[in-house]
């Protein structure tokens, strides 16, 4: 990204066409960065609440006074209620924030650390680890290898519409002749360019995938040599999937058996093939679905080949091949205490052990009044998750709330202390992990001086560590010293990286690394039949559970599903960019013609959508090409918050919220 600065103010921001990864392309969010910087209601100084919660009355204080107060209150609460009573909820835990929140919580001995992964990707990431021993390299990080891909399956994913900057390569490849199958309840823009569009019933993707496996095995389209040499449990799988015929799946998915067979044949006979699965694991059986798509990749041999799926081996909790990852440099793989709430969902927690991706768990603790101090780092949970009223009611149980954010978010309004954060344009932002950056270390240089007294999270936690007596884990005198320590194994100096912008320190990942190292599983092979899951009491093979399919009834005769808006989804921090809100069309409900006709609804009408959790108002958009019994609403907004709950239904394996494929009713509102 290039920023043009005049008289201390950015006048234009646009992509850097010389950038090795995005080649200058920016998504709508990146293109809105100027508004992000200047349009919102910035928090400029540390504030301590003087009125009632939510009343908006504050006293401006110095950082010294604010942090003294925070340290004093946290120590008091720990003494009175114990270490489990203090929770962190962070929305920006990433390499750019150097994971210091987590390091701080570990240093303090407080186990309840929650990040945004509980609403995102973790559920399928652990399924990948159980199967391959390592997570798959993310789509954004494999686009360099797609020049060889012959077929893409875009599966319930707004790709590339969702992340166009990096994975715009998909439509470009399709225009160049790659085949494309889109499995999605609605006709997405990319589906209009696809060879096959499958309007599947939401929350039945597992049934579809199992029927694909059935077809590929029974028609002997699988990669026999690869399966024999590099997988475990194929014979058990073959027997297991016999009941999952395409005809069986047709009744569940509303997709004709012949279409399922056609998709299976296309996938198995066009190698390398790539499955673009969605980021959001919001089904009641998403973990099982992820195990099923991993099985599809395995039996067709689409693993660790260019154009197929590469593995993020350095991210594996089992194998660390010595490549620079600063999770390990910061000691984040060895958190000292396991949170009690994680023990309820060991399948989710065990593979990483280092983070708690449990939105459900945090809400449980808040509702039970077990959290007495809550530190929120750039996470506006009422916006990000379907829980607005419930969350606000739940945090009323918390004695002490600290919010560190750029803007006065909904949560910040309820805080006891508010601390002002720098934006990414106001600090140096390193991106140091190599596992998904094509071997490139890069640095986003500071462009502006921060307004008021804003600080970075590195500055905040280093200062707070001193107040709390934890400075032995935060010994750096400034950010430069910290970055130099982190960069040391790569032989790169912070100053050089800052001047150069980026440094290539590692070559492309090699294909078929398994031939040298095996896979990072106990058997050193791909575990189609997973013994670790069996030991945990979970299904060792991907298995359909009919009781988890939510069926329409008289009161709620339609299926409600959410989708990530066509444009780049907007994290809660970006809520301040009002134009982006407009682009996201978050007040729209997409309604198939069949339901619209039945209910007398026309495009532009106000409609009320009702679920067992509540009622929300939307603007109707009637569409022809959709699954005929499904209504779609955008995820991550206050209206959706009224009709979905984090507690029910959930995926019982991982506790992930199932906001796709629940049931609802709809009527015109006048």
């Amino acid at each position, binding site marked *: 990204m290039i920023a*043009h600065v005049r008289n201390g103010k950015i*006048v*234009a*921001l*646009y*992509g850097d*066409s010389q950038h090795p990864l995005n080649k*200058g*392309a*920016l*998504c*709508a*969010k*990146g*293109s*809105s*960065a*100027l*508004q992000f910087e*200047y349009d919102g209601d910035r928090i400029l100084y540390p504030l301590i609440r003087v009125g009632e919660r939510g009343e908006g009355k504050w006293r401006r204080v110095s950082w010294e006074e604010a942090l003294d107060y925070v340290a004093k209150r946290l120590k008091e609460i720990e003494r009175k209620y114990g270490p489990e009573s203090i929770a962190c909820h962070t929305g920006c835990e990433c390499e750019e924030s150097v994971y210091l929140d987590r390091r701080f919580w570990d240093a303090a001995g407080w186990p309840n650390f929650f990040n945004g992964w509980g609403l995102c990707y973790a559920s399928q990431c652990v399924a990948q680890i159980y199967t391959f021993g390592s997570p798959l390299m993310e789509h954004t990080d494999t686009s360099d290898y797609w020049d060889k891909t012959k077929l893409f399956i875009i599966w319930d994913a707004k790709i*590339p*519409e969702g992340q*166009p*900057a990096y994975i*715009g390569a998909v*439509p*470009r490849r399709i*225009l160049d002749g790659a085949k494309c199958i889109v499995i999605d309840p609605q*006709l*997405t*823009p*990319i*589906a*209009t360019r696809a060879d096959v*569009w499958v309007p599947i019933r939401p929350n039945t993707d597992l049934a579809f995938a199992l029927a694909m496996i059935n077809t590929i095995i029974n028609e002997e389209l699988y990669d026999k040599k690869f399966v024999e040499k590099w997988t475990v449990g194929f014979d058990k799988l073959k027997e297991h999937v016999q009941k999952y015929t395409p005809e069986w799946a047709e009744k569940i998915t509303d997709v004709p058996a012949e279409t399922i067979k056609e998709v299976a044949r296309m996938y198995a006979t066009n190698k390398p093939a790539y499955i673009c699965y969605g980021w959001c694991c919001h089904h009641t059986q998403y973990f099982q679905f992820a195990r099923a798509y991993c099985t599809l990749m395995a039996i067709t041999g689409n693993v660790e080949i260019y154009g197929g799926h590469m593995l993020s081996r350095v991210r594996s909790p089992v194998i660390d091949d010595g490549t620079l990852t600063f999770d390990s440099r910061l000691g984040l793989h060895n958190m000292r205490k396991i949170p009690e709430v994680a023990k309820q969902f060991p399948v989710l927690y065990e593979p990483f052990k280092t983070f708690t991706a449990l939105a459900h768990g945090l809400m449980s603790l808040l509702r039970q009044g077990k959290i007495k101090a809550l530190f929120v780092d750039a996470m506006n949970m009422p916006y990000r998750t379907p829980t607005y009223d419930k969350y606000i009611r739940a945090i009323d149980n918390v004695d002490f709330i600290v919010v560190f954010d750029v803007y006065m978010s909904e949560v910040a309004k309820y805080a006891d202390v508010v601390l002002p954060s720098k934006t990414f344009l106001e600090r140096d932002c390193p991106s140091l992990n190599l596992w998904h950056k094509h071997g490139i270390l890069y640095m986003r240089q500071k462009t502006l001086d921060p307004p008021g007294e804003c600080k970075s999270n590195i500055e905040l936690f280093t200062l707070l560590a001193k107040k709390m007596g934890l400075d032995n884990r935060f010994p750096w005198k400034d950010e430069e010293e910290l970055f130099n320590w982190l960069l040391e194994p790569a032989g790169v100096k912070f100053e050089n990286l800052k001047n150069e912008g980026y440094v290539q320190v590692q070559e492309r990942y090699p294909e078929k690394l398994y031939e040298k190292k095996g896979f990072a599983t106990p058997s050193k092979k791909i575990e189609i039949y997973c013994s670790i899951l069996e030991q945990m009491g979970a299904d060792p093979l991907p298995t359909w559970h009919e009781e988890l399919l939510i069926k329409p009834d008289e009161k709620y005769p339609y299926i409600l599903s959410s989708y990530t808006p*066509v*444009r*780049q989804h907007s994290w809660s921090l970006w809520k301040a960019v009002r*134009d*982006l809100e407009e*682009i996201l069309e978050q007040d729209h409900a997409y309604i198939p013609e069949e339901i619209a006709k039945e209910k007398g609804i026309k495009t532009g009408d106000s409609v009320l959508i009702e679920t067992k959790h509540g009622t929300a108002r939307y603007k109707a958009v009637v*569409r*022809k*090409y959709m699954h005929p019994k499904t209504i779609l609403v955008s995820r991550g907004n206050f209206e959706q918050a009224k009709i979905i709950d984090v507690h029910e239904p959930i995926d019982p394996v991982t506790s992930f919220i199932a906001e796709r494929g629940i049931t609802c009713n709809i009527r015109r509102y006048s």
Partner: protein
Amino acid sequence: MATHVMVIDLWRCLGSGSCYATCQSLKNNPPKIGLIKVGPYETSKGKAMIRFLHYPIGSCNECAYCMEMFQREGTTPCVINCPQKAISILKLEDLPKLLAGKKSGDGLYIQIFK
């Protein structure tokens, strides 16, 4: 007198909203390129289609920064940012050459760019 045209290839465009957001963010004098989603509908090939139609509210020459950048570098922020590389700016005299290779329905949006 117009000397250049902005051409958007609507077959490539997937409606990322990047050009729209870019324009909106350049505060000098927002160019206000609108983006409307049309479809899906049947095409002559029988496929369902969604097209993103760009329409001008005012013209795309209002933004001082874009003009300045175009003079300097021959491109504009929205051209660079577009993830599908669907936008290009041509000299007006080159437009007939481009159109000669196209058929009706190929989906080009053309905007005079002074």
